[in-house]
């Protein structure tokens, strides 16, 4: 029988572990929830409206997939103390380094435009004109980073991430058929057979779960936070928690549209929110708030991913712990990318639909390279030491990377040539 002192010792140990986790928590949770950005919410809303609860099982599988890829960035960042862009330059030379840096810059900038499209569309449901939305969002984005404290920025981001959980009460309010939800979540099935359209939806869901900026963001974030090798277990736990939350949000979003809009043609989350307004104004409002919040989280993380990457390579001071006077290049890059992307949305007649489609294709030029570099780096004993990948991690990671490359390439090709999947 355990003595009182043993119980007290175990209690203190658990409390200490929880406190340490809360101090380390951040990069994994933020990157995973930011993964459900405006494009992600649109994909989930469309998936629910088209296939109801039938593809919930597939979304659940994507959680561990995202975890396995992102967990590697935690180890790489904590061991090398370098962001992914700098690690690529160092390990593979300047050709691959410049390629990754420019491709990341372009992909992130185009994705940023889609975040602003999502936010303006969500705000317009409440009658807010795009120009007001954009000015307010830019002020929030700038104010958050100019504090000169990573810690403050991270806690505000976690509050925004918590707001993203709005999909959970929304899903409860629509009174879904619980047995149908459980069936859709546990029994793999391909409604209507594995045809071109279903394949397109599956690939779109994969594309929104693993994005190249996530790899760069989390590794830079781990470095900026100052995580060390001893913090890796907590970093892993943080990433696992993030993966759970990202899938929860995705599943509950699908439940909302799968319950109320099943069979309707949904092209965007904003359209879904608008269609939900006459059916259930509360749920419609929650979906619009969730879409806006998702776009905001995505915009902040994506702008930072690029700024960190360029700062690391060019040699600018590139930490959120530096003020704007200490790191002018880093903050200028952040302001320029966010402002120009926002400005594109305001241009009358700008080809926003084409940009949204083009993002997927450009992302596919970077994703395979970023993931392949990740696997190679994680196998280099000289760089990783005892933290290098095990055989099991290599088999699992290798299979995931290969599958993601094939599926995301198919998605890009089918976006370029839609007639191929018909």
């Amino acid at each position, binding site marked *: 029988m355990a003595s009182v002192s043993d119980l007290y010792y175990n209690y203190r140990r658990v409390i200490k572990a929880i406190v340490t986790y809360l101090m380390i928590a951040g990069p994994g949770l933020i990157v995973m929830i930011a993964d459900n950005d405006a494009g992600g919410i649109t994909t989930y809303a469309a998936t629910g409206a088209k296939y109801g609860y039938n593809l919930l099982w597939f979304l659940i599988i994507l959680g561990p997939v995202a975890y396995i890829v992102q967990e590697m960035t935690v180890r790489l960042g904590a061991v090398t103390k370098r962001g992914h862009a700098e690690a690529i330059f160092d390990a*593979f030379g300047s050709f691959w380094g410049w390629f990754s840096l420019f491709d990341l810059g372009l992909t992130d900038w185009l994705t940023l435009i889609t975040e602003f499209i999502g936010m303006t569309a969500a705000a317009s449901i409440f009658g807010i004109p795009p120009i007001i939305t954009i000015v307010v969002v830019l002020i929030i984005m700038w104010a958050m980073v100019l504090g000169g404290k990573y810690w403050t920025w991270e806690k505000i981001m976690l509050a925004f991430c918590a707001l993203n959980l709005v999909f959970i009460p929304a899903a409860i309010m629509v009174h879904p058929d619980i047995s149908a939800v459980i069936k859709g979540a546990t029994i793999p099935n391909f409604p209507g057979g594995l045809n071109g359209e279903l394949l397109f939806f599956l690939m779109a869901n994969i594309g929104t779960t693993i994005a190249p900026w996530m790899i760069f963001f989390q590794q830079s974030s781990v470095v900026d936070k100052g995580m060390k090798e001893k913090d890796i277990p907590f970093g892993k736990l943080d990433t696992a928690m993030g993966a759970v939350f990202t899938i929860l949000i995705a599943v509950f979003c699908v439940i909302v549209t799968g319950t109320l809009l099943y069979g309707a043609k949904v092209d965007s989350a904003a359209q879904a929110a608008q269609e939900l307004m006459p059916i259930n104004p509360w749920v419609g409002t929650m979906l619009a708030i969730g879409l806006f919040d998702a776009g905001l989280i995505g915009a902040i993380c994506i702008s930072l991913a690029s700024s960190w990457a360029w700062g690391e390579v060019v*040699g600018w001071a590139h930490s959120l712990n530096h003020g704007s006077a200490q790191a002018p290049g880093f903050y200028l890059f952040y302001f320029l990318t966010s402002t120009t992307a926002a400005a594109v949305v305001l241009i009358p007649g700008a080809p926003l639909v084409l940009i949204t489609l083009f993002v997927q294709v450009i992302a596919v*030029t970077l994703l395979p*390279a970023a993931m392949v570099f990740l696997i*190679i780096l994680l196998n280099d004993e000289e760089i990783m030491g005892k933290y290098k990948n095990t055989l099991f991690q290599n088999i699992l990671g290798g299979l995931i990377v290969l599958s993601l*490359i094939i599926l995301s390439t198919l998605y*890009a090709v089918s976006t370029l040539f839609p007639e191929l999947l018909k």
Partner: protein
Amino acid sequence: MLDFVFEKYRDMKGFMQDMVDRVREINEKYKTPRVKMNRWVSAVLLLLRLYLLCLVLLLVFKFYTIIKGNGLI
């Protein structure tokens, strides 16, 4: 007026020269890849180059069809 234009031109030239020097410095710093280039790594990097080349060709083909479809060629 002309002096002002020349001054701005010199400033711009100086800035561009600084950028070129910085890029050269970065290229020099990362001249030698640190990762062990065994047969596997070399093969993977070659496959990656081929993959990217195919994607670029597809994109070029897509733009060609768009331009041709709009009657610009």
